[in-house]
């Protein structure tokens, strides 16, 4: 670490208000870029948060996730969102529990059910179980504002044929 940095980190070097003025004086005009660096984390944060809002509205991203600071704001997502998986074979269609090995992928599908992620989930299911068709449904719950009666609705679904 440079002596300069050590100097400025220690408050025993002088009154901070004056130190701040010193800093401004010390920074040459050609180093404006360095002076803008403290704003970089805020810029990154703003971009991520705006992208999170976009994904929440276009791809049903769980508002609690994704870095947009939507936690503790809505009942959407989280434990109120469910994934149902149905497999079709010659014997008919049956709803199955997701295999333990695919639970992490199911969590990701529930949180951000994009088509590509659901297709990836369907392919992984195809590898785990034999079937003709897989149907994946992502359900979310909304609550009546008066009685709190829960109503479930499908927010995303995908059907995929097994590869032969």
């Amino acid at each position, binding site marked *: 670490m440079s002596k300069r940095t050590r100097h400025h980190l220690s408050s025993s070097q002088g009154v901070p208000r004056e130190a701040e003025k010193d800093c401004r004086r010390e920074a040459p005009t050609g180093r404006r870029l360095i002076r803008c660096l403290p704003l970089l*984390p805020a810029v990154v944060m703003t971009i991520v948060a705006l992208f999170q809002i976009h994904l929440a509205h276009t791809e049903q991203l769980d508002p609690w996730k994704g870095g947009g600071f939507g936690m503790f704001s809505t009942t959407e997502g989280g434990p109120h969102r469910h994934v149902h998986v149905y497999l079709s074979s010659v014997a008919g269609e049956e709803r199955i529990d997701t295999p333990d090995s695919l639970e992490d992928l199911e969590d990701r599908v529930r949180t951000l059910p994009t088509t590509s992620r659901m297709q990836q989930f369907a392919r992984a299911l195809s590898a785990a179980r034999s079937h003709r068709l897989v149907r994946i449904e992502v359900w979310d719950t909304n609550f009546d504002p008066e009685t709190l009666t829960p109503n479930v609705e499908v927010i995303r679904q995908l059907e995929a044929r097994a590869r032969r």
Partner: protein
Amino acid sequence: MKRRARQVLGAVTAWVRDEGADLALRLTLIDLLFVPVGSWSVRPFVMLLAAGGLLHRAVLRSPATWFLLTGLTGWRVVADWPMADNHAYLLCYWCLAVFLSLLAPCPAASLSQSARSLVTLVFVFALIWKALLSPDYLDGTFFRVLLLSDRRFESLSLSVGGMSTGDLEVARKFLETGLHDPKRSVPNVVEPPSQRRLASTATWGSLAMEALVAFTFLLPGRSTALLRSTALLVFCAITYAVAPVSGFGWILLAMGVAQSPQDAHGLRLLHVVCFALLLLYREIPWLTWCG
């Protein structure tokens, strides 16, 4: 006795003064040890860096330490995408801010600027979600459902909301079971008036406190420092008494220390006291004693 107390206070104030900007860095590292982050590929290295920084000042002030912490916490967010919680993102931004400040001509001022902008954005985005984007926050539905269904808030519903254990079980069944059964038949939720009041207070209280923090942090000028810090301290002291996310509160307090004037020793000390308070909230089941 009085003299002894004055000596202790003097020693603590001197410690806060001597710590300077290091105080914010140390609080961040303590947070990383109190709430270890990530999986095995991240956690041990983060903890080692945090312990090293707390033990040795050169490690604490080395840009390399914070570059590595930024990389590790950033990798955790990327690897877990989209599962990471919001404080994982904030932690990464904060480590980046510390790293960049250590490269700047005046680290303390740079860190203060970053901290202030990050805290502002946290509360502005939280407000946008609650007041504009969420379909069920302002009508109170969110907190009514949360207080009934989330077991982390059970003590609050039992002690302040006046719910009984049986009523809570019935409410959870009503909210969570048989949702896809067209012939579903479960008893309705029974919410005592005190529980409705609690939900309403939580809804509007949270919104008001977040708006206050956002507003004070948006106010220009150095003279508003006391107002900003007070708003953030009040928010942390109240919110994290019941919200089980002390890790988020500790990052906010570390940023609060960084943005507060370095000559405001009392104010900086209050951030440390609040930091300790959040640990007590987390470790002592005080709400269960209120029932």
